[in-house]
């Protein structure tokens, strides 16, 4: 009694089965997905976003480790990258998708992305359940920065039926960065 001796075969079978299932999905799938070449669009996103994931150098997700750009003679963190970070931090992706699906969505939200469009991006935040419009091409549909600023401050002032919550608590520079990110999504 005790011990695992009589379960040797079972343990080996379990590990082999589980490893095989993981190899077929994570292994083969991962190798395939890892070989997709980056598109021009993906490279442009990489330049703006930098690393969007939470990092120890930016614990409050304020965009402190986004790439630097020159704006009016000053070096600042790229507002598009900062905007994406705020998009992740505020959980916008819990309602807004960044993925017009390959089935019917393209008629309404525009072209679905190519596989290579995501290379170098993490997290991709392509979204969960869509309680709100897809944003992949929002910059083309709504190119006005002023509209986005107003919409984030008080969504119902521009769309009375909106159920989006107000983001009036965000500091002005963060709201500007978020709007910059929105209009960058062409």
């Amino acid at each position, binding site marked *: 009694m005790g011990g695992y001796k009589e379960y040797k075969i079972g343990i080996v079978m379990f590990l082999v089965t589980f490893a095989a299932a993981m190899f077929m999905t994570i292994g083969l799938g991962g190798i395939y997905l890892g070989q997709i070449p980056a598109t021009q669009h993906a490279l442009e996103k990489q330049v703006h976003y930098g690393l969007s994931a939470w990092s120890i150098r930016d614990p409050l997700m304020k965009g402190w480790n986004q790439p630097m750009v020159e704006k009016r003679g000053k070096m600042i963190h790229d507002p598009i990258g900062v905007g994406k970070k705020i998009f992740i931090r505020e*959980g916008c992706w819990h309602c807004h998708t960044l993925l017009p699906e390959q089935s019917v969505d393209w008629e309404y939200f525009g072209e679905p992305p190519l596989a290579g469009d995501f290379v170098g991006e993490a997290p991709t935040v392509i979204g969960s359940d869509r309680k709100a419009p897809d944003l992949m091409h929002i910059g083309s549909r709504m190119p006005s920065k002023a509209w986005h600023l107003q919409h984030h401050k008080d969504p119902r002032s521009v769309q009375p039926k909106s159920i989006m919550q107000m983001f009036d608590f965000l500091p002005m520079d963060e709201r500007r960065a978020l709007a910059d990110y929105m209009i960058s999504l062409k």
Partner: protein
Amino acid sequence: MSTATATYEGMKPGTAAKHAFFSAVVWLCLGTSFGFFTSLRIAWPDLLNGVDVMGPLASAFAFGRVRPMHITLVLFGWISMAFVAAMYYMTPALCNCRLWSEKLGVWNIWLWNIGLVVAAISLLAGANSGREYQELIWPIDVYVLTLIVGLATINVFMTVLQRRTQGIYITIWFFMAALVMVFMTYFIGAIPDLFPVTGLNEAYMVWWHAHNILGLWITPVSAAIAYYVVPKVTGNVLYSHKVGHLHFWTIVAFYSTPGAHHLMGAPIPEWMKSFASVSGVMILIPSLAFITNMVLTVQGKWHMFSSNVSLQFAITGTLMAVPLNFQGAFQQTRAINWYIHGTHWIVAHAHFALLGFSTFIEIGATYYAVAKLFQRKIYSGTLATVHYWLTTIGFIGFWTALTLAGLIQASGKVYNTTFIDVVYATHPYMVGRSLFGLTIVLGQWLFLYNLYKTATAGEPVTEKDAPATVYYT
């Protein structure tokens, strides 16, 4: 008797399980309450605007920050902790020995509680990894893998190692396998946090994790708990160990493979989608094996369904798995997925699995184990029945409201309806969801009260190992 490795540290057997069950139920109450709060923000987005009390906390209680907290608290606070509570209670019971280390178990649960508090604060502060079901930042991921999953695994495996029974019962296979599988699953979900994995590979790992935290952790352990509670309460022998084998091996073989079906609309290769879709339908094999086994185990004892609250919850949860699994198996095929993907239908389905199936079985186990651990009758059978009906009616209403809202969204997608009109059309259902959600939340607070009173003021039971029926009023 070789119990030299066992360390009791002056703690009564069952101490770790008691801490675990009570902590888990507190997280259940908090987690569902936060869920209710997020649902209010969808139904009435301006609800808290202009309330000065919010002040600097306005950002912390924004929808996008409370929603991941709801998920984290119910998934890792309630469901997973109740699983480990069940392991700390059932593993020694089935191995006819003591838990390897009560002290380690108590440490495990309190480190877990501390971890959840830190996780909740970090999420409210906006530190979010941006990956659904895996929202915790990587330092907390490492903490989860080592001090939460790691310690629980050591304790359960060492307990089985020193068992005093000849074989290992089906519940224990599932416990042990699931602990290994949840470690791997959580690790794969955390890989994009820990290593520079990007692009579709990142998305794929995230959704593989989101699928398998259910497939390889919540489904098998819920079933394992039912495999213990149902035969124990009814006094019947498990209907078939062979069917149990079928259940176990098909879970290990098929349940992890359909991760890609969450990305049916994404530009991943067709072969991955087809493979995921076909293996997704095969999930019906383990789930039907489990349901059959449980329902046939109750043969001849169906009258207990109305008299024993543990069985009532456990069997309701098991029967919920019938529609749940048929829905799950077929909604991920391409013929249906394009229609309902990304709608409230999916939210309803997720709650079906976590609330309808898993939580019901765990509540059954909690009533059973708490009565046993404290050697007392459940304080109030009436309250337990009220809890049952609040949760059941609340859940069915909740699910119906969300499913209907999902169908509205889906048809809006097909007919190219202006998006905002769809949002407006689903509003009454969002209000309905909040109301039924409140019903569920009230039920859980009654549950906590009932358990607290059971532990402190329940009628003591003196028989050493009386049948479970004794423990109910």
